[in-house]
């Protein structure tokens, strides 16, 4: 979340970070994903604190390298640190991130209670990203990446991903 009172220098770093994409969902930036937890600036030295979405997410090393590369290209001396606490939550995905995710074809995470129902197959609450139907079913709790479950639409029959709530 970019706040108005943010100092210009930090604003500049945020703008650079907004160009770094999640390699698994390339329409989302690391800011959209909510994995940037803090930025410390000291002249050209910048320390970026990030947090992994899933412990074993193979994209994290790549994301850290991309952040370093982007900041180096702008003349900064970057250091990327990984934080475990507090653990990442899908609630940290920005509104803009959720919108882009849906357009890309991944259903955005529901809040926790609805998510549990969806993944237990109790309620039809996940909307098909192709036709908008709510008549969908869970195919598998685990999908193409650690963060997603696989759904199928009962109306248009197309499969689609759902970003799990954690």
């Amino acid at each position, binding site marked *: 979340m970019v706040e108005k009172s943010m100092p210009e220098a930090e604003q500049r770093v945020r703008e650079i970070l907004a160009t770094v994409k999640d390699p698994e969902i390339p329409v989302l930036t690391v800011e959209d994903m909510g994995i940037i937890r803090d930025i410390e600036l000291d002249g050209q030295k910048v320390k970026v604190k990030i947090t992994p979405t899933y*412990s*074993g997410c193979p994209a994290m090393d790549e994301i850290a390298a991309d952040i370093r590369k982007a900041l180096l290209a702008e003349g900064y001396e970057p250091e990327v640190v990984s934080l475990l*606490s507090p*653990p990442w939550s899908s609630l940290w995905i920005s509104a803009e991130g959720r919108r882009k995710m849906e357009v890309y074809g991944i259903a955005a995470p529901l809040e926790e209670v609805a998510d549990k129902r969806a993944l*237990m197959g109790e309620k039809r609450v996940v909307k098909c990203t192709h036709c908008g139907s709510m008549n969908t079913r869970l195919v598998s709790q*685990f999908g193409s990446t650690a963060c997603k479950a696989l759904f199928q639409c009962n109306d248009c029959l197309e499969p689609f991903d759902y970003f799990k709530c954690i």
Partner: protein
Amino acid sequence: MNKSLYDYLILLGDSPLILGHRLSELCGHGPNLETDIALSNIALDLFGQVRNWFQYAAEIHGEGKTEDDIAFLRYEHEYRNVILTEQPNKDFAWVIARQFYFDAWHYSLLTQLCESRDERISAIAAKSIKEVTYHRRFSSEWVKRLGDGTEESRARMENAIAHFAMYKGELFEETNVEKEMFASGTGADFKVLKAQFESFTNEVLNEAGLEIPQIDWTQRGGKHGVHSEHLGYILADLQYMQRAYPGMQW
């Protein structure tokens, strides 16, 4: 170096490491695409968690030790995983039964470790439990589906649940290090662990219509470095690259 803490972290990391390796063997060999992907994802989560435990262990150890040294350059008797985790994949029911017992135990252990006085341990546990919640849901649903399924699936599930029952006692045998860690507020209370495990597994097995195995003895040794013959083969596979090309990096 704080040797007790180091040993404790090895105990925490070795079981998910070895089980993760077993699950990774199924990548591309699962019974169907969805379960194949699910088991590979669970393996990936476990490896991520193991990295967190071993990174911490490496820092406690000092002297330039890394997470990779710990994972790849120890000998068999230095691994502290429970024997359950090294048991080979036979059929899908076996994979699920092994996972079911492990997840039930892992979930309760991590729940307690979220309250650990050691902040790094509680942070890793809080991160891991979000993932393990999905693992436990996956394995217990399959126990129910197979138990409550066809005659064939039920027979296989019951057989596997009964077979792996002889490994579960070790999950609740406290080593000296674990006693020390519990006493200092860092580790878990094994009485609570066992009670939660029993209550969860009994509930799922009842729902699945499966018999709850009655067994008053256990296979043991892994937590003291005495393993079944299977671990050696796993390590041969796991460590091949580092042993053949020492210090090799990607």
